[in-house]
């Protein structure tokens, strides 16, 4: 028996190790008491049911102080032509304390907002090495320039990017390849308190939120970065202006592998836009011929969140759109000829009763392929009066990519997926720098959710921080190819995506069980190629353009 005992212990340990290896990756809710993120979104809800009330808020992970740790920015509503807050409302910047907690530094940083905010995007628009912030709003947008000392300055007017009206998603990307970050700003409908429309049940005078169909569309904005702290609105000359929309999510990607960044934009109750970059500053809207504008029955849907990614690993960017209940969400597989086929698979039925906003293709388990997370919530808080099945608050969904097909793993991904939320914005990033992607969800009229990824890093990984020298900061459009354990994978770095958010600017490459990275190649948007070999895994690496 004495000889057998160590063997028994070994077997038990092996069994435990095997069990641990097979246990699913879960997302743990980091409650405000632990994270110290105590900010809450105020949706300004009124009996009048003004539409902007239900469309926010947003937020994001970004590293404002360059300490290598992701901070959190959250966007609130605020004063508008239909809303006067009883107490002051503000956006919030939380500095990462490197220990799982955050500190509110909003006032010191000077980024409280003051408008009826929607969402935000972070990027280093002026190339000074510090992440700046662009905040969208119903009203005036704000560009906060990062001063590099923990404070920001509102440079909106100088930069010329106020874009008054109602803006939703902002996305930084370099559409003309000049090495400077340009700015896309999605415009939602023409709306004002003076033009209020009654939507609801006339018999009992009960108001609902109007379907955006009843409002006029507006052209979105494309701002070209002049490189001197100012932007030029090139919406007209680029062709964007010719397509007024009711635009929410937007993602910059290269759908035809021509090296030019295109834009895919979700529209609510209108056809989605696929702006194909024709070069020389021109875009052509090709949504209908490409098969991504309408449902496969020829009807416009209520597109809200979007993203792009090569989920099937064929080297071509696929697209995703979250729609409203009964419309099913769309997974558009790239057919490599500027056309797409909607193949949602299991996602279709899983989202039949849901309305989606924030979403992201991301490799949550570090196995190298793109999985998908969806944040949902019906826009109308009266929907349960009108529907037997559709609820106002809805669950998050997590899909794992299994050989190019998405499998719903929400039930195994933690208790948070059993709860319902009025979710809107969603950002992904590795806020605890442990090598797996965490999630930030902003809820409408409620506290945000910080979801910590527990177990994604059981696989090996490599984090890349791309430092552009010739390409635009952030290197949106860069193509990363890596090989590990005999598997070669490619990823195009997209800009924007999701809804009212931007994401961790670093790229986290999943290696699976491979113990080392055989090679990494970065093809920068400028055309330059850098190669790394024999890189040790499970760490973040800074790669400077032209440095290899």
């Amino acid at each position, binding site marked *: 028996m004495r000889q057998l005992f160590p063997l028994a212990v070994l077997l038990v340990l092996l069994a435990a190790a095997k069990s641990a290896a097979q246990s699913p990756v879960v997302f743990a809710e980091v409650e405000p008491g632990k994270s110290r993120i105590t900010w809450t979104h105020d949706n300004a809800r009124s009996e009048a049911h003004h539409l902007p009330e239900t469309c926010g808020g947003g937020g994001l992970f970004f590293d404002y102080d360059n300490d290598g740790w992701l901070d959190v920015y959250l966007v609130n509503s605020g004063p508008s032509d239909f809303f006067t807050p009883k107490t002051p409302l503000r956006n919030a910047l939380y500095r990462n304390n490197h220990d799982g907690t955050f500190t509110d530094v909003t006032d010191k940083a000077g980024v409280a907002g003051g408008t009826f905010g929607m969402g935000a995007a972070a990027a280093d628009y002026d190339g000074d090495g510090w992440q700046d912030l662009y905040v969208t709003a119903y009203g005036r947008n704000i560009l906060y320039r990062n001063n590099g000392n923990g404070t920001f300055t509102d440079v909106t007017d100088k930069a010329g990017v106020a874009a008054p009206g109602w803006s939703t998603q902002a996305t930084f990307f370099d559409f003309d390849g000049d090495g400077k970050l340009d700015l896309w700003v999605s415009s939602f409908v023409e*709306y004002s308190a003076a033009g209020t429309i*009654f939507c609801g049940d006339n018999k009992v005078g009960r108001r*609902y939120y109007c379907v955006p169909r009843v*409002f006029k569309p507006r052209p979105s904005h494309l701002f070209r970065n002049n490189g001197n702290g100012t932007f030029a609105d090139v919406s007209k000359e680029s062709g964007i202006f010719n397509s007024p929309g009711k635009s929410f999510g937007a993602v910059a990607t290269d759908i035809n592998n021509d090296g030019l960044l295109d834009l895919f934009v979700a529209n609510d109750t209108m056809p989605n836009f696929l702006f194909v970059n024709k070069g020389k500053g021109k875009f052509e809207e090709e949504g209908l011929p490409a098969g991504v504008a*309408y449902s496969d*029955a*020829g009807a416009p849907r209520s597109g809200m969140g979007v993203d792009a990614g090569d989920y099937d690993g064929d080297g071509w960017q696929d697209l995703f759109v979250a729609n409203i209940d009964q419309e099913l969400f769309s997974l558009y597989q790239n057919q490599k000829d500027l056309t797409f086929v*909607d193949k949602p698979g299991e996602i279709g039925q899983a989202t039949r009763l849901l309305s989606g906003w924030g979403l992201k293709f991301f490799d949550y388990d570090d196995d190298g392929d793109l999985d998908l997370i969806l944040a949902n919530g019906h826009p109308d808080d009266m929907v349960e009066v009108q529907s*037997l099945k559709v609820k106002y608050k809805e669950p998050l969904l997590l899909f794992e990519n299994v050989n190019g097909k998405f499998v719903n793993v929400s039930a195994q991904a933690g208790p948070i997926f059993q709860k319902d939320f009025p979710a809107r914005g969603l950002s992904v990033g590795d806020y605890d720098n442990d090598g797996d992607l965490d999630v930030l969800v902003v809820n409408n009229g409620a506290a945000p959710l910080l979801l910590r990824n527990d177990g994604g890093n059981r696989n090996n990984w490599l984090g890349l921080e791309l430092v552009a020298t010739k390409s635009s900061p952030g290197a949106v459009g860069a193509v990363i190819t890596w090989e590990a354990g005999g598997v070669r994978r490619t990823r195009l770095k997209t800009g924007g995506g999701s809804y009212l958010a931007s994401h961790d600017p670093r790229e986290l490459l999943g290696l699976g069980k491979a113990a080392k990275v055989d090679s990494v190649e970065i093809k920068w948007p400028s055309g330059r190629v850098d190669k790394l070999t024999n890189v040790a895994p499970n760490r973040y690496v800074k790669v400077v353009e032209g440095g290899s």
Partner: protein
Amino acid sequence: MANVNRWLSKALLVLAACACLPAAAGARQGQAGAADVDAAFERATQLHQSGDLEGAVRAYLSILAANPGRADVRSNLGAAYSRLGRYEEAIGQYKQALALDPRNQTIRFNLSLAYYKAAWFTEAGAELANFVAAAPNDLPERPNAVLLLADCQVRLGEYRKAIELLSPYEKDGAETPHGRAVAYLLGNALIGDGQLGRGQLVINSVFRDEDSAEARLLIGSLMLLMDDGQGAVRELGRAVELNPKLPTVHAWYGRALMRMGDSEKARAAFRVELADNPNDFDANLFMGTLLRQDKQFEESLRYLTKAVQLRPREQYARYHLSAVLAALGKPEEARPLLEGVVKEYPDFVEGRVLLASVYYRLNRKEDGDRERAVVQKLNSEQQAKQPGAQKSTDAPAPTKAP
């Protein structure tokens, strides 16, 4: 209640039974061998009347083998087939009998009834229309034929024809079975035609306080069309409780459930309707639509094909069928359907979007661009009509759809 559907069913049964009864065999004078044939016909008819239908069929067929020109024998054979539920064979015999004796209105009526029972409503409607047109006003069968014709027209979606046919009888009053049947069918036709206000008047005047399946069906369907989904589910659910065998009740219930977002129960309701009534247009159309939405294209194709067969001119059936064909990678099959739809309904945006998509898939870029331009124009026009484009202040606007 001497309820409408029971009345309709009763009328149909009486008429159908009449159709199944053999005409009495009569002697034909002056024909060689006629006495033997008449005797055989007499025996066959006795078998028929005694309920030995298979024996009667054999006997009639035996006579016809040697005497194929006997319209009376063929008519009786048709009646026997009809009673056996062999409607296609009955129709064949009636048609041959009518060819031999074209002025015989009884045979024509029996033929139309066989069509009706076979659920060949297009053919039944055509024969009934001929019958009604030729029948004098005091012919006892005429009122029943009018109701059956109206029922065919409603089933075929020819609502305006049914309204025109029934309107003269609207004043017959709700107290008579015939009057109630008229109100029932006329209410259906008015709802189908989108004349909801008049439909509501007709229905309320007769059925408002009545807790019958038929009344709940009419009121529920009206509520659905007036976008009161919850009320429709309640009324139609009650109709199902009261009479689950009432024709179309499950189809309407399924539509109400669809409106309220319960596609699972809606599917179940359509399946029940189709089990009892495979030729129900709405059940086929909406079942096909639900399946198409769920991207179960192969199964959807079956129902939508049936819907188009039932109502070949129906715009939405053709449109949904073409959407499925396109999704199945058959743009060349979808194209003519869509071209027909947009030719007849030039402002039908979804149809034009699909047609543009199909042209692009067929590499007919010029045609696709042309359709796309029309789509953009129509979209702009529709958008301009929205209340938000008018800058109205607190004016009633469309109720939000879920």
